[in-house]
């Protein structure tokens, strides 16, 4: 009898504990789920709908109809030519992120991680651009290039007209700004590497290059994959500071997809009905880009996780 009572009490306790666990789980998951529903499902649901809408207020009343016109617009020859220019520039910034920003950031992070000469000072200096808002940095940079270095370039470089040096100076700015954010992430990830592993590698006679490649990189591979996934996902939204530099007026030759999309829906550049129509075109372009970028991003992530270096 007593045994039965104990069993019953234990079952109740277990049930209570299960309930509490469920309550904790629901509480913890509710907020992110709510955020996902609000800021992804609802927002994007409207965006997807807008991609197929035509807006007309010419009669004095808003009339919304559904068609494929917005999608078809981006397949017309004139638009394809402009989009291709933007895509090329966006791909260039993606390549820069992967093949320039990432390797240099990794190497520099390793330098700081290993506490080499004046590492802390460099860490502060490299991180400074991330603290100052990018608008202020752009203003400094514009004056620096167009005034201080005007003798070197034979006049103003950063402006609405085409200039042979312009793409270069914008890329330099982009790289400078990109290093700082990345370095902090890599240093944090590297700090998770157990010192004993590094020491073991040292005892085994590994040089710095081997330690970096065979010990540290595998340890932080997850971070590297995450950042590459972000770079790919960023492909269609990265405007490479062009709006901060030029407002509406970046030269066509330097525009990225992100800037193109952003500029399409700039209030002031277009107003009212034109803006309403452009919102819908931008939604259509966004939808098409998602259909391209999302699978590519997932594929890259899976390939990197499958074939990348392993800690063991």
């Amino acid at each position, binding site marked *: 009898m007593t045994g039965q009572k104990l069993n019953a009490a234990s079952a109740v306790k277990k049930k209570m504990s299960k309930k509490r666990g469920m309550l904790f789980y629901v509480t913890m998951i509710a907020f992110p789920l709510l955020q996902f529903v609000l800021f992804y499902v609802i927002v994007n649901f409207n965006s997807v709908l807008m991609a197929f809408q035509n807006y007309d*207020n010419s009669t*004095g009343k808003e009339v919304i109809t559904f068609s494929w016109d917005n999608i078809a617009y981006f397949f017309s020859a004139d638009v394809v030519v402009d989009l291709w220019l933007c895509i090329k520039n966006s791909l260039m910034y993606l390549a820069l992120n992967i093949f320039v920003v990432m390797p240099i950031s990794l190497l520099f992070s390793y330098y700081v991680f290993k506490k080499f000469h004046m590492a802390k*000072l460099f860490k*502060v200096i490299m991180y400074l651009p991330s603290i100052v808002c990018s608008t202020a940095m752009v203003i400094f940079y514009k004056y620096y290039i167009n005034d201080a270095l005007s003798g070197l370039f034979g006049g*103003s470089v950063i402006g609405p007209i085409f200039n042979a040096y312009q793409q270069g100076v914008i890329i330099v700015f982009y790289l400078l700004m990109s290093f700082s954010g990345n370095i902090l992430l890599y240093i944090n990830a590297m700090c998770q590497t157990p010192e004993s592993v590094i020491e073991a590698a040292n005892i085994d006679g590994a040089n710095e290059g081997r330690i970096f490649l065979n010990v540290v990189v595998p340890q932080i591979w997850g971070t590297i994959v995450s950042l590459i996934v972000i770079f790919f996902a960023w492909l269609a939204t990265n405007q490479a500071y062009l709006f901060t530099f030029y407002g509406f007026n970046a030269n066509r030759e330097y525009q990225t997809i992100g800037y193109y999309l952003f500029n399409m829906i700039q209030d002031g550049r277009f107003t009212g009905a034109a803006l309403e*129509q452009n919102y819908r075109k931008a939604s259509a372009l966004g939808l098409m880009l998602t259909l391209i970028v999302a699978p590519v991003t997932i594929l890259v992530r899976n390939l990197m996780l499958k074939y990348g270096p392993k800690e063991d």
Partner: protein
Amino acid sequence: MKNMVKIISLLLCLMMAFGFAVGCRRDNSDDQKVNKSKTQLYVKYYNGGFGDEWLNQLCAEFEEMYADAHFEEGKTGVQIMKEFTRGQLTGPNDMKGKPINVYLMENIDYYTYVAGGTMLDLTDVVNDFAVTGKDTKETDKKIVNKIIDSYDEFLNVSGKYYALPLFETSINLNYDIDMFEQRGLYFAEGKTAEDFTEADFANESKISALFVNDADDARANGPDGKPTTSDDGLPATYKDFRALTIYMKITGVTPFVWNGYETGYLTGLINDMWANNEGAEQMKLNFTFDGVANTLVELDGNGKVVKNADGTIKLARETDIDESKKNLLQLQKGKLDALEFAKLLLDDGLGNKNSTNYYSKSFDSGFSNINAQNYFLDPDGNNIDPIGFLVDGGWWYNEAKVSNDRNIGILPLPKTDANQIGKPNTKVSDRSSFIFVNNETSTAVQPVAKAFVSFLQSDYAMETYTKYTNTFRAMKYDLSKKTLDTMSAYGKSVYATRNSDDTTVLPWTPISQVARKNASLLSYRTYGFSVNTQENNPLIYFKDHANATAVSYFEAIWNYRK
């Protein structure tokens, strides 16, 4: 070493903090406290270049006028709560759920707001006389009769009015009258470059002989072709204009300056020249897509411009324009001529090392409108040569806080050739600024909001606007002699342009239903000069395509738009 790092880090942080402190501007707007014994009227005004002095005065006067009025139970008088900032409305939905009652904004697409149902019907206000006091109104003209005809055409939606025009403004070529006098930059009586050959333009003495030797010398008739008018001595034709830019450089003056960040100013100026070349009737076709076009350029089968035997551009036969043929308007001859003018702004065409016509920083993204104004007004202080013309909108004079002793004028745009001298002027106002009331305004506050809007349409209120801003409301009204006497030279120049019998100001806005259906096509920044889906500005196009001529650019536009 550790201390060294800390000191350097601290220094860098201090430098940054200093930068922020210097860069920040204190907002001096007064914090208003709600006076519960009064009815509150919330007014939002786009406080751009025109400033808010005029509106502050009128608000204070309105509050005084209605000091003993009762609109809500237990409340006496009106308190205007001001939101005078640079904040814009992003669309009709932006008005929903906001406490604002009256809006005075720019970049408003009227029909989108009407369709959005967020504007209060103001028909009763428009069909009444303007309020001048709590119990008094004007007796001369109803507000509806003060609306400029071209505005009335599109404000009137099936007999209902939902907004009233705020200001009218165009992008202008502004010049320093005193500098023109000192340097003798006026054409002497009877002189013109109309018969000049290329060799003549390159001949300094021939160019110099066109201009007055002394400020008091008799001057040639300007573009209006009439003697003793305010445009005397100013270039009457494109060729005169070209000669003036060459002569300016002979006398050490840089012909033009504009800002390099907002190139829409340049598009606005060339749009204005296009309208001036076309005339009001033909230009209006672009906002209706309905009528007969008689200035279209003829193209051959390859899309090339056809010329007459004498080298002039051949015009096509009269063409009926409707929605299906709207793109033909891209072939208006006035636009082709405006492109020639755009080239003149860049270069005098002599091909020598001094042929550039603009200040070197004008295509520098860091060279703002404020910089351009400052360089134009104070060349000595900026250690540069004097500048002939500033390209800027009508708001710049107030924005730059120009002192009243400066004599600044607006250049009447030159005509394409001598045959066009004396023909009427047409300007376009492209900022779409309106006064309107939020549809969500409570029933108790609606009478105050309507009274305030009505008061702003009184002659007195509109004259106050002009007195402070040196520009005009987009309404029909005149100025008293007293006001005119106290106005700056710039204000008088605006007045002369505006009150000239032969000047029509067209709002750059779709008027007909067909045009409204094509609103995205009609953006003033992209409509006339795009050769691809990106924005194109004529001056930037010419800079980016060194070998382009006005004709080749015109053909490229057609190739894209056809």
